[in-house]
């Protein structure tokens, strides 16, 4: 396939960026989108130009490193990570726009690379269970009903890629935060810190510059791991309960 990719080029956080057109040739339908970018970069290097910077690592859909907006959609036309999007989703002669995640909470570092460390700070604020190492009770000591375990698991699959933020018209991190709160709060181990967890995580999320949720639902449509919108409902309920408790 022969394509034109229009890539966002920005040399640093404080410089202006712009979309630049690049023709790429010899694209196989079996290539992943990142392999297409690799091909483009080899062309650029051979031509003595700067390759496009983009984040990627495992290339099997689980590390959450990769993520670009393709033709206006986070991770592109299919519900998956960019590394698992294949060029068979496109046609010969297509013009493809490639941009970084855009959100106040994710400043651009270079080209398609953004800073997602705000997500780490949301987790640091309380997205864990305080369990000192070495002295845990036997794993069978606290049975977990299967539906609860499954609900926890469904939310624990979040890979922290940030597509939810990029897709949200408000640049909100609600789905990410909701996934972690739903994961931990639905397990017996998560109960003791349940109240403080949600208050601290939501506080940090707001302080990091992420917008509010207006239930547009774009986040869940873009989520490669299918974190459901109902997790946000859970987050809201947990937050209201916690806030009431805290006021008492």
């Amino acid at each position, binding site marked *: 396939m022969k394509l034109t990719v229009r890539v966002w080029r920005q040399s640093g956080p404080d410089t202006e960026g712009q979309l630049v057109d690049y023709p790429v040739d010899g694209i196989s339908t079996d*290539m992943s989108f990142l392999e297409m970018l690799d091909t483009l970069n080899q062309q650029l290097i051979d031509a003595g130009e700067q390759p496009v910077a983009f984040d990627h690592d495992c290339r099997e859909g689980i590390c959450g490193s990769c993520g670009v907006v393709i033709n206006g959609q986070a991770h592109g036309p299919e519900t998956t990570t960019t590394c698992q999007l294949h060029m068979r989703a496109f046609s010969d002669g297509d013009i493809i726009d490639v941009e970084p995640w855009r959100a106040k909470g994710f400043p651009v570092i270079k080209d398609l690379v953004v800073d997602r460390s705000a997500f780490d700070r949301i987790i640091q604020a309380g997205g864990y269970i305080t369990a000192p*190492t070495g002295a845990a009770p036997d794993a069978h000591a606290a049975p977990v009903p299967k539906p609860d375990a499954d609900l926890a698991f469904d939310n624990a699959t979040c890979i922290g890629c940030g597509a939810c933020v990029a897709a949200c018209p408000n640049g909100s991190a609600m789905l990410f935060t909701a996934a972690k709160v739903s994961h931990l709060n639905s397990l017996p181990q998560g109960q003791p810190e349940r109240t403080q967890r949600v208050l601290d995580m939501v506080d940090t999320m707001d302080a990091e510059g992420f917008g509010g949720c207006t239930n547009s639902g774009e986040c869940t449509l873009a989520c490669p791991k299918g974190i459901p919108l109902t997790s946000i409902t859970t987050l809201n309920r947990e937050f209201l309960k916690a806030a009431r408790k805290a006021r008492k």
Partner: protein
Amino acid sequence: MGELSMLDYTIGEPITDTKAPSGPIDERWSARKFSAKLVNPANRRKHRVIVVGTGLAGGSAGATLAEQGYHVVQFCFQDSPRRAHSVAAQGGINAAKNYRNDGDSVHRLFYDTVKGGDFRSRESNVYRLAEVSAQIIDQAVAQGVPFAREYGGLLDTRSFGGVQVQRTFYARGQTGQQLLIGAYQALSRQIDAGNVELHPRTEMLDLIVVDGRARGIVARDLVTGEVSTHLADAVVLATGGYGNVFYLSTNAKGSNASAIWRAHKRGAYFANPCFTQIHPTCIPRSGDHQSKLTLMSESLRNDGRIWVPKAKQDPRPPDQIPEDERDYYLERLYPSFGNLVPRDIASRAAKNICDAGFGVGPGGLGVYLDFADAIARLGRPAVEARYGNLFDMYQRITAENPYEVPMRIYPAIHYTMGGLWVDYDLQSTIPGMFVIGEANFSDHGANRLGASALMQGLADGYFVLPATLNDYIGQGGFTDVTLDDPAVVEAQTGVRDRIERLLSVNGTRSVDSFHRELGLMMWDHCGMARTAEGLRKALERVPELRAEFWRDVRIPGTGEELNQELEKAGRVADFLELAELLLLDALVREESCGGHFREEHQTPEGEAARDDENFSHVSAWEYGEKPVLHKEPLNFDYVHPTQRSYT
């Protein structure tokens, strides 16, 4: 040995003391822990410990050491510690819990692991691994890791390649991710508490050794390019394996050997570099553009049946090949283990059958992994519940629906059992430098059984290192090191010079083109099958390619910015050195064992033929103008070496 005289290496003193306590094997770890010095909690916060890497080993170590009270300075090259490549491990984690009452025990896990490693691992280490395995599950569950559960609320388990009990705990096909997130969250808690200072997007480029002890690292901030120095009382490397030396592997693209290779050049011995695990169930490559390979969890072999058509190059689609025209070759060759034989056996069998012309798919490099029987027996929903995400992933990559047509799989480079040499305390030959997880060599021998890498990473990080590092710190004797110390300045200058040198080559070939060429050569001559002739050929070519790299590599941009080509170049330069040691080690080890298959050494049935007489040792290489080989003899007092049989 006459024919080896052309090789430029020398034999050094054997390694006789690994610091493992003597006495009954089940008391050794307790004895070691009791003899280890303790450090008063108030004194711990006066000590800085550097941890490089945030995977299962590094993340769990950082969290635990910080919780103990040490001041931890932690590094990862990814933008977040949650993205370390342990996240991609799918199948599960073993533990000797015997929850199934199927005859499992610490001793049996120990036995299976020593045997599975083809008698090239240390009994003391493996026993300890089996011993702490049960605690890992307790720890992870306490952290909220959502393992699979039965309807009664208790944990579910399944079986895995190479064993006959159900001791593998799992979280759908994302066990690595869930365990890593558990460790990451524990680490995050310590970051928030101020006990861990985290440096993401930062790469270790050298080790600082002062007065013979590891005292810090030189690192590069990958965003700004700033080269900085970090000092500490101990350094822990948890930087994973070096499988990317083969270019195509199941490793993440960023996984690299730089940290351990630089430490090797500073005096840490490198052990058994030729022990590379080939994983039998990867998605075959689709073309020359391929940048990495994707593993399908080995757990698929629990219910999937592996076969090829009985007729060579049978053109029919798989569903039109009748039952009696299929060769279920693993079930035929290894009736008692069938599709669950260990990884090295399954991989080699796939290679042999494809080499004989029976392979399926493009280029004939693939075999079928068929779920038709499982779907008929269990129903599609049950198969979906067990492997759904793996099936989805397969379909996404190949555009074939594995519920309807069998998957195609082929072996690929997956895990490196070799790594930096460590003693029983996980300390390298450089005092104060500890190496944990895949970065060290110690527990797996020549082959790794499924679901044991997660176990080792977490055992090292949560339980072993925290006890032994205490002992090292407790022995004290730390002098003050300042930034103007000649050893610090020398390491810093070396790093800056090397970056300058890379950038100034300004040649014509991209970094990737060198990496691909190296990888292909390694796969051809040092992959699933190795011969003296092929290894010698590669040993001639690698130094030439290395010279060409330093003469002709092209790296655009500067060192003072985010420069991904420069990052890659530094790593490939290291692979070009490590590759030579790997080849040499494979050439010197004149036997077959585990993942190391020398064609000259096989049984009449075509299985790996070990030579316990001459090679029951760890090969620990010391860096120098000529490599020096130190042999650590292996003793088997509890599991007596036999020809591994899975028939």
